[in-house]
C-alpha cells in the first residue's frame, strides 16, 4: 500500500510534463493576432491557421512603387467619408459586389500597410486570402484544398499556390476575356 501511494504522485508529475507542451502549443495555435513580419514567400499555414496546409505563394502583385502605402499616407489625415476619389487612385474603378463596397471595407485607414477583416483584425497583404474568404467561403474552402485556383510544382510535394489577387484583380475580380490560340488545322487543309 505504501509503495502504491508513492508511485501515484510520480505518475501524475510525468503526465503533466508530457501534457504541458501540448497545451502550450495549442494555445499558440489559437493566437491569430500574431501576424509575422516574415517577408519570405514560404507560408507555414499549419502554425497560424490549422486548416490551411503549408504552401508557397509569390509576393502580392503590387503595382510598381505603390507599396508601402504608408509612404504617402503617413503624412495624411485619414478621411473615412465614403466618396469618389479625386486626388489619387482615380484609375481604380471598383467593380466588386456592386455599389455597397468601398475602399475602407478592406483597406485599413489607420495602418495603411495592412488590410482589415470584418471583425477588425489586421492582416498582412500577403494573407489577403483571409479577407476574400470572409465572403467567398466556398471558394476559400476549395482553394485551401488546392481545387480553386491554379497550382504548380509537385502533385505529391511542394506546391506553389497563388493568392486570390494573383488571378483576380481585387477591384474588378471578373476575368477579362483572352485571345484564344489558333484552332487546329482542318483535315481538308492538310497538304
Amino acid at each position, binding site marked *: 500500500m505504501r509503495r502504491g501511494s508513492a508511485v501515484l504522485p510520480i505518475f501524475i508529475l510525468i503526465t503533466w510534463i508530457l501534457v504541458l507542451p501540448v497545451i502550450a502549443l495549442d494555445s499558440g495555435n489559437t493566437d491569430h493576432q500574431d501576424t509575422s513580419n516574415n517577408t519570405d514567400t514560404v507560408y507555414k499555414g499549419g502554425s497560424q491557421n490549422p486548416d490551411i496546409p503549408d504552401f508557397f505563394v509569390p509576393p502580392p502583385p503590387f503595382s510598381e512603387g505603390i507599396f508601402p502605402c504608408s509612404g504617402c499616407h503617413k503624412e495624411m489625415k485619414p478621411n473615412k467619408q465614403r466618396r469618389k476619389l479625386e486626388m489619387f487612385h482615380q484609375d481604380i474603378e471598383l467593380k466588386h459586389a456592386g455599389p455597397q463596397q468601398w475602399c475602407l471595407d478592406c483597406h485599413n485607414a489607420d495602418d495603411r500597410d495592412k488590410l482589415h477583416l470584418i471583425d477588425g483584425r489586421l492582416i498582412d497583404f500577403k494573407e489577403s486570402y483571409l479577407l476574400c474568404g470572409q465572403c467567398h467561403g466556398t471558394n476559400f474552402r476549395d482553394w485551401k484544398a488546392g*481545387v480553386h485556383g*491554379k497550382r*504548380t510544382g509537385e502533385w*505529391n510535394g511542394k506546391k506553389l499556390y497563388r493568392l486570390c489577387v494573383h488571378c483576380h484583380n481585387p477591384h474588378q475580380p471578373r476575368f477579362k*476575356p483572352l*485571345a*484564344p490560340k489558333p484552332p*487546329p488545322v482542318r483535315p481538308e487543309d*492538310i497538304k
Partner: protein
Amino acid sequence: MSKKIRNNPLGIKLNRRNFIKGSAMGLAASALPLTKKADASFLDVFFQKHFREMSKQEIQEVLDRFEKTYSEEYGKKVSVKATPAIPGVLFGYGLDLSRCIGCRRCVYACVGENNQSRDPQIHWITVLRFKNGEKWVDLENSESYYNPAEVPEPDHFYMPVQCQQCENPPCVRACPTQATWKEPDGIVVVDYNWCIGCRYCMAACPYGARHFNWSKPNIPPDELNPETHYLGNRPRYNGVVEKCTFCIQRTRAGKYPACVEVCPVGARKFGNLLDPASEIRYCIENKRVFRLKEDLNTYPKFYYFFAT
C-alpha cells in the same frame, strides 16, 4: 519441257532462265542497302525486344542508343529516361468545366512539352465548344475549329478532351502487337518501336484521343523538349500512333502535367487517386463529377466536374 513462253497480261516475255537470273539479282540488290546501312544501331532497332520483356540492363542499352541517335539528329543533348511507375500511385485527372474558357493554352503547352509534330499538325488535346442549353453530349456536333477574337464567348462553354487513361482501355485490347498497354500507375502508353501503325487502336478509342504520324514528325530542333521518356515524349517515327500520357516524363518525377501548369484559370486538377488527401480525391468527393461516355464501360480516370 516446252520452250514456249507463256503470255501474261502485261505482255512481258520472260523465260524461266531470265526470271531466275532476275530474281537472284533483285534479291542481291535488296540486300545491298541493308549491308550499307548495317551499322549496329540499325540492326539493334530492328531486333529490339518488347519493352516489357527487356531486362533493366537491356532497357539501359536501348535508352543510351536513343539518347545518342536523338542528340545527333537534333544537335543538342537529349535525355531519354524510362522512369518506372511509383508504387501506390494511380493517376487521376480533374477538369472543371465551369472554369474552362476555351483559350487552347493547354493544347500548345502539350505540343511543346511532348514533342508533337508541328506540320503535319498533331494535337493531343482537342477543345470542343458547345452552345449553352443544347444537347451537349452530342459530341459529333460540337465545334473544335472555333476562332473568335476573344474567349469565352457569350452563351458557349468549352470542354477539352484528351486521353481519358481508361482503367478498361479498348485501345489496348485492339492492338495486335501489344505495342500499347496500361502501366501500373494507370497511364496507357505506346512503345513506338512496337507499333506497326495499323490504327486499330484509333478506331477502338471512343474519345478520339489517339493520333497517327502520317509522316516523319516535324519538330524544330530548338523547340524540341530534351527531357524525354521512352514511353512518352521521345521523338516518334513515321507511321506510329501517339497519345497523351499525362506527361509521363513529368508526373513520374513528381511534377504536374504541362497542361495543368499552363491553364490560366486553374481548371485542371491532377493527383493520386489512391491518396485520400489529394486534390483529385477532393474533387471526386466534393464536386459533381462525371466521366465522358461512362456507358461504354471504359472507366476513365479523367473526371469532368462543375465547381460552381
